[in-house]
């Protein structure tokens, strides 16, 4: 339980007023709490570091915490200073704001810590001076992206709830192949078949020697037509099955069908089916050949298997404006230079620059510094302009490229960070488990009392999951059991049966805490909460530190020795009647 929540404890306890009138039994007794300057200088004590300033300095900005009466809440009578339990290093900047009117953002501070301090002191970040504003905004944006990444990661790494439908399970297996071995196998199998299919397409066109009764070389595809056809069929069947399964499993079919990956899948398998449907009609065979080209799009199916490919695609998408600018400026330059070259070369004989569009080819080849040499200017004017063309080509292309590269680099590093954080998560969680969450004992005892009040209101008790399951299964046994005390004495070794476990749990209410001490060394699991509640009810001084999140676990075996005896011993304590009434009520339920 976070320490901050402890501040809300009085409120939570006050909210119990809603339970009081509906409870049919009195509430348990709460645990006792052991515990209990005109213009002049204002001393601000921030976690021990003393700052001093004039009263009027602070009152320059009356709509912040320090400038308004809100600071009275932090006034410490004994030392007549204002005490804030906050970070003194960041406070320095906040106080400087009052002094100079300019808020600065220190580069070495963490952005979220700084934001928290600003929010606490009621200062809006917009007034950060121009000198530091850019930096602040950039850091904030990075932080927001990181948080988004974390959320996505959380969504992806959610522990699977036990009751996933088959469809949800299938979808999860497809999207995160590392979740189950079957999914992983399927992932590798499809990858393998994509590779096979693409290679078959390539090898198909390689010349494979001549047939005996022909002089022309035939391609391998024609020679082993049947083999390639079978291979193609097998690949397409696998892809079709995969696509259909994904379609079935998709949570939103329309969204899935519009997604890029599914379009690629469809485009990859369509040519085959269209080819089956069409016959060897001469009219459509030309179109059929074109369709075969689409088979090469199967290679894009690899983007599911490769994160790098996805990053590249995402980069191109995000750099759309830069790419657009590049395209536009190139087009402009091409048209200008092509026109100039055409008119320059118009005079020379047998020139290849027959029209402006024909000159486009020369311009493109020259600007990208390819220089095939199939079209060359012959006149001097042509050569001059040709050289200007090649020089400017270098410049125009070089300009937008760094922007694209930096975008790619940023996205790539982001994905690397996500991978790194995924790896670090495991060690972070291990560290957290070690540190644990220790709340102060008074808080725990009061929280505990609150939960006990709720139990009294509803006449039910909190139990842990295991006990609950056991209870459900053995509910029939409970109904048969007679008086609890007799079964206790008659079954000293019936420790595994849930009846006796429950009996012991009830009787534990009347046990004084001395038994707890012995038991704590022999307990099977961690200290059971029911013990400690009994210790509170018995009004003993030691407040045993509890972990409220721990299950309410049944006590250990040793307890069996004298439960009946101790309940009679407790006759003297005020709580006996209370605990006796507990037992009575329980057996009535």
């Amino acid at each position: 339980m976070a320490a901050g929540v402890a501040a809300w404890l009085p409120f939570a306890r006050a909210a119990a007023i809603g339970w009081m009138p509906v409870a049919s039994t009195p509430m348990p007794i709460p645990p006792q709490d052991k515990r209990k300057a005109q213009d002049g200088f204002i001393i601000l004590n921030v976690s021990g570091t003393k700052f001093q300033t004039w009263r009027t300095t602070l009152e320059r900005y009356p709509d912040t915490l320090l400038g308004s009466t809100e600071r009275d809440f932090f006034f410490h009578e004994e030392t007549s200073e204002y005490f804030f339990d906050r970070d003194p290093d960041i406070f320095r900047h906040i106080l400087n704001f009052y002094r100079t009117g300019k808020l600065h953002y220190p580069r070495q501070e963490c952005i979220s810590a700084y934001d928290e301090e600003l929010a606490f002191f009621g200062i809006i970040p917009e007034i950060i001076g121009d000198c530091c504003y850019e930096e602040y905004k950039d850091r904030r944006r990075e932080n927001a992206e990181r948080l988004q990444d974390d959320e996505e990661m959380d969504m992806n790494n959610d522990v699977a709830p036990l009751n996933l439908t088959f469809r949800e399970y299938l979808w999860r297996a497809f999207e995160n192949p590392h979740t189950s071995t079957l999914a992983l196998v399927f992932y590798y199998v499809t990858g393998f078949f994509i590779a096979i299919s693409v290679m078959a397409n390539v090898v198909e066109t390689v010349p494979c020697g001549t047939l005996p009764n022909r002089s022309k070389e035939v391609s391998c595809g024609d020679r082993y037509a049947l083999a390639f056809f079978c291979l193609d069929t097998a690949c397409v069947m696998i892809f079709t099955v995969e696509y259909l399964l994904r379609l079935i499993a998709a949570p939103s079919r329309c969204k899935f069908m519009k997604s890029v990956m599914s379009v690629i899948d469809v485009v990859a398998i369509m040519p085959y089916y269209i080819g089956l449907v069409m016959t060897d009609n001469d009219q459509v065979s030309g179109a059929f050949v074109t369709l075969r080209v689409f088979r090469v799009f199967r290679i894009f199916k690899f983007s599911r298997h490769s994160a790098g490919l996805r990053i590249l695609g995402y980069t191109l998408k995000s750099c759309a404006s830069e790419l657009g600018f590049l395209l536009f400026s190139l087009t402009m330059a091409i048209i200008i230079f092509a026109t100039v070259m055409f008119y320059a070369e118009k005079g020379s004989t047998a020139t290849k620059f027959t029209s402006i569009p024909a000159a486009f080819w020369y311009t493109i080849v020259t600007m990208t510094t390819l220089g095939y040499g199939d079209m060359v200017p012959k006149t001097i004017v042509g050569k001059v302009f040709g050289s200007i063309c090649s020089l400017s080509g270098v410049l125009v292309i070089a300009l937008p490229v760094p922007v694209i590269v930096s975008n790619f680099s940023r996205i790539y590093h982001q994905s690397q960070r996500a991978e790194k954080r995924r790896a670090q998560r495991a060690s972070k969680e291990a560290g957290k488990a070690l540190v644990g969450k220790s709340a102060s004992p008074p808080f725990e005892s009061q929280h505990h009392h609150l939960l006990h009040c709720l139990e009294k209101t509803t006449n039910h008790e909190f139990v842990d999951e295991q006990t609950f399951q056991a209870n459900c299964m053995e509910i029939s046994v409970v109904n048969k059991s007679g008086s609890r005390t007799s079964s206790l004495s008659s079954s000293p070794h019936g420790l595994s049966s849930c009846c006796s476990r429950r009996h012991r749990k009830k009787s534990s209410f009347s046990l004084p805490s001395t038994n707890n001490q012995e038991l704590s060394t022999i307990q099977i699991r961690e200290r059971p909460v029911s013990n400690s509640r009994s210790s509170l009810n018995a009004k003993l001084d030691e407040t045993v530190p509890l972990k409220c999140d721990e299950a309410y676990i049944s006590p250990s075996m040793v307890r069996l020795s004298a439960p009946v005896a101790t309940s009679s011993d407790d006759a003297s304590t005020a709580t006996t009647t209370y605990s006796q009434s507990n037992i009575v009520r329980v057996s009535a339920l």
Partner: protein
Amino acid sequence: MAIFTATNPFMSLTDSVEDDFELSTVCHRPESMDKLEEQTKFTKKELQVLYRGFKNECPSGVVNEENFKHIYSQFFPQGDSSMYAHFLFEAFDTNKNGSVSFEDFVFGLSIILRGTINDRLNWAFNLYDLNKDGCITKEEMLDIMKSIYDMMGKYTYPTMMDDAPREHVESFFQKMDQNRDGVVTIDEFIDSCKKDENIMQSMQLFDNVI
């Protein structure tokens, strides 16, 4: 030229960051401590303690319903306390503006923790009376009861029956509805509560919360 101003896919991200930016600067400042001391039954020291905790958790000075539910749920990890937190929020938010400021918080606490028996019972009645029409019907009580039972969660002993809230409501009306007209008015409520020893005894629960 459209190309020069083509929208960057990343633009939407920065926009949303800036939007969040604007909303988070809503700030509420409470009344001065002197005024609050007059209007509630807390001493200055107690107000200081309360405010420090409040301000730490909600630097903006107000709690909205989501935060409220979240805070309350941390005290009841096993069950679902959102419905009861909702009813509490409605009861604390006296001016019905969707957020609980420090004043609302402190006024509510002052009544519950330091008020007379009548005040407290009045407050509880106000909590139960969801539509604030002066009487509690069985449906309203059933909603409240269900929300309380929801806080227990699934793992209880004995196993929670589905009609446990309804039975509890029946026994509540048996006790409280004196003229058997199907609703409990404020007078019936206060009267029956004062007659019930258990409830009176439980009221001492609030004597040393702060």
